[in-house]
Structures are given as structure tokens and as C-alpha cells.
């Protein structure tokens, strides 16, 4: 796989995002295109990741988990970043749309994160000999995941939509802030015991496949977020007949 192919996929993905955000008439089909494109990319990833790519130098074939594990964690972090951006935006300017997007991205982030951590655990078994280890990336992703599981539970346990929106935004920000601190604390703790070898020696063709995996799962992320967002909006309108929080015109287009 040439190294420009993932870049092309990324450009298509960005174009889809821009279409979804800027062109209202495209909203009926963007998610379909994203889902179809994601499926095609996934088929290509299956071939390139499992057959085409050479075995990794140190981990041989087990290294192929990289091509799905890392993209899942990336998609998870992207989703949580969208979530916390929505939380900040909501606290600055109340809008049901940012609240719905926050809910959508949190759930999808938890999904990608759970699968990603599961894959990381499967990967850790043959490479490190254990299912679980004090790896800063693993721990900080898991802590983040737990914080967002709490966030989702909190959302489902709060009745009043306005309070839920404001309070869960605060909870999201507090949870997200902990990410760098967890990272550093686990790294410092780790320096006591052992230094984990970070597989930084990823060869060029492998890097292309890895980026291709990232594009693939980010495309799925887009499709999922659009559908989950529509669901959240529908729930809002059925739950509260959409009373204007401040004034209807303050709603930002998402």
C-alpha cells in the first residue's frame, strides 16, 4: 500500500464531515456514504492487515493486532475530544444540539474504547506475557473509559434534561482533565519498576496500513456519530417538546 492512499481516504473523510456540517441537504446521505465507504475500507484493511503486511520484526504475526487496536483507541480519543468540546461549548452557550452531540460522542467513545482496551489486553498476553500491565497508555485509556461509563450512567439517571445537560458537561470536563495527569502518574510509577519498550520501529508499509486502519475506523466513527446524534435529537424532542433553552436562534448548526 502506497503511503498516499490513507491520506486520500482521510481527505474524503474530511470532505464528508464538511458536507455534513455545512450543507444541510447532504445530511440525508452523508452517513450512508460514510458507512458504505467504511465497509469497503474495512475489507481492504482485512486484506492489507492480515495478508499483505509483513510480519512485525519483534512480535511477528501478533503485531497485526496493531492495525485494529490503535485505530480503536484513536477513534475513542477523538470521540471523547468531541465530547469535551461539546461540553465546553454547552457551558458557554446552551444548545440542545451540542448536548445531543455530546451524548452521541460519549457513547461511541465508550464503545470504541472498550473494544480497543479489550484488544490491547489480548495483545498484551503474547507480547508481555500478561493480560494487564502498568502501561501508561493502557491505564489512561481505561481510566478515561471508566470516567465516561460513569458519565453515561449519570446521564441516564438524571431526569431533568436541562440539568442533565449542564451537569454532565461539567462531569465530562472533570473526567477529561484527568487524562494527562493519569498518563504522567502511571509513567512515573512505571519508571520505578520497568520501562516498557514502545514499538516505535514501525516500518513504512506497516505505517501505511496503520494509517489506513485509522481512516477506516474514523469513517465508521463519523457514520455512527451521525446516527447516534439523530437518535439523541429524537429523544430530546419526544422527551421535552424542545422548549427553547435561551432562544431558538442561539442553536448552533451541527
Amino acid at each position: 500500500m502506497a503511503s498516499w492512499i490513507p491520506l486520500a481516504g482521510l481527505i474524503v473523510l474530511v470532505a464528508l464531515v464538511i458536507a455534513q456540517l455545512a450543507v444541510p441537504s447532504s445530511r440525508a446521505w452523508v452517513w450512508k456514504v460514510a458507512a458504505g465507504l467504511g465497509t469497503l475500507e474495512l475489507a481492504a484493511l482485512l486484506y492489507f492487515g492480515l495478508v499483505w503486511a509483513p510480519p512485525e520484526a519483534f512480535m511477528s504475526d501478533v503485531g497485526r493486532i496493531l492495525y485494529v487496536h490503535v485505530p480503536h483507541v484513536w477513534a475513542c480519543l477523538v470521540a471523547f475530544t468531541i465530547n469535551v468540546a461539546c461540553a465546553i461549548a454547552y457551558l458557554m452557550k446552551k444548545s440542545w444540539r451540542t448536548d445531543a452531540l455530546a451524548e452521541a460522542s460519549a457513547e461511541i467513545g465508550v464503545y470504541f474504547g472498550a473494544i480497543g482496551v479489550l484488544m490491547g489486553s489480548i495483545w498484551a498476553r503474547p507480547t508481555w506475557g500478561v493480560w494487564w500491565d502498568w502501561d501508561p497508555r493502557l491505564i489512561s485509556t481505561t481510566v478515561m473509559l471508566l470516567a465516561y461509563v460513569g458519565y453515561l450512567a449519570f446521564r441516564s439517571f438524571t431526569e431533568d434534561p436541562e440539568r442533565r445537560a449542564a451537569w454532565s458537561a461539567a462531569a465530562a470536563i472533570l473526567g477529561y482533565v484527568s487524562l494527562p495527569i493519569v498518563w504522567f502518574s502511571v509513567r512515573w510509577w512505571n519508571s520505578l519498576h520497568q520501562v516498557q519498550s514502545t514499538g516505535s520501529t514501525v516500518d513504512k508499509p506497516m505505517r501505511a496500513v496503520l494509517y489506513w486502519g485509522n481512516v477506516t475506523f474514523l469513517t465508521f466513527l463519523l457514520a455512527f456519530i451521525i446516527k447516534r446524534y439523530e437518535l439523541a435529537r429524537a429523544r430530546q424532542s419526544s422527551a421535552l417538546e424542545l422548549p427553547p433553552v435561551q432562544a431558538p436562534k442561539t442553536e448552533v448548526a451541527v
Partner: protein
Amino acid sequence: MKWLSLVLFLSLPVLADIAKPPPPAPAAVAPEPQHPQGIEKVPMGVIEGGWAYVYAAWGAGLLGLVGYAVSLYVRRSEAPPPGAP
């Protein structure tokens, strides 16, 4: 979340399968392992096989995608018809 937990639960047999003791002993370093690029004296400890782990991880990813898509499809009745404002 309901679906997510279902997917995780379904992937448990896969985990249980690979949880069996890995047959090859990776500690038994092959005589004079050679780095593909020719860097010598690097303790390589190349892992033999391990495809079960690869299939488990990729399978979890695929199952997750399908499962989450199905969960969105099941919940679609609450969403407006496509193209609605």
C-alpha cells in the same frame, strides 16, 4: 450499553479459548536470532505463531462494529425519518 455488554459477553468464549496456556515457550530463544535489517546482538524473542490472538482481536473489532450498528438500527424507531430537519 445493553448491546455493548452483549457483544462483550459474546466475545468471552473467544477469550476463554485463547486463555488456554500458549503452547510455544517464547523464552526458548532461537539460536542466534537475526534482525531482518541485520542489526546484530539484539535480543529478539520473536513470538511464534499467535494467530489466535490476532483473530480474537480482529474478531472483537468486527463483532463490535456489527453489534454497534445493529444497536443503532434497533433504536432507529426513535429517530426521525432520514432527511427530516
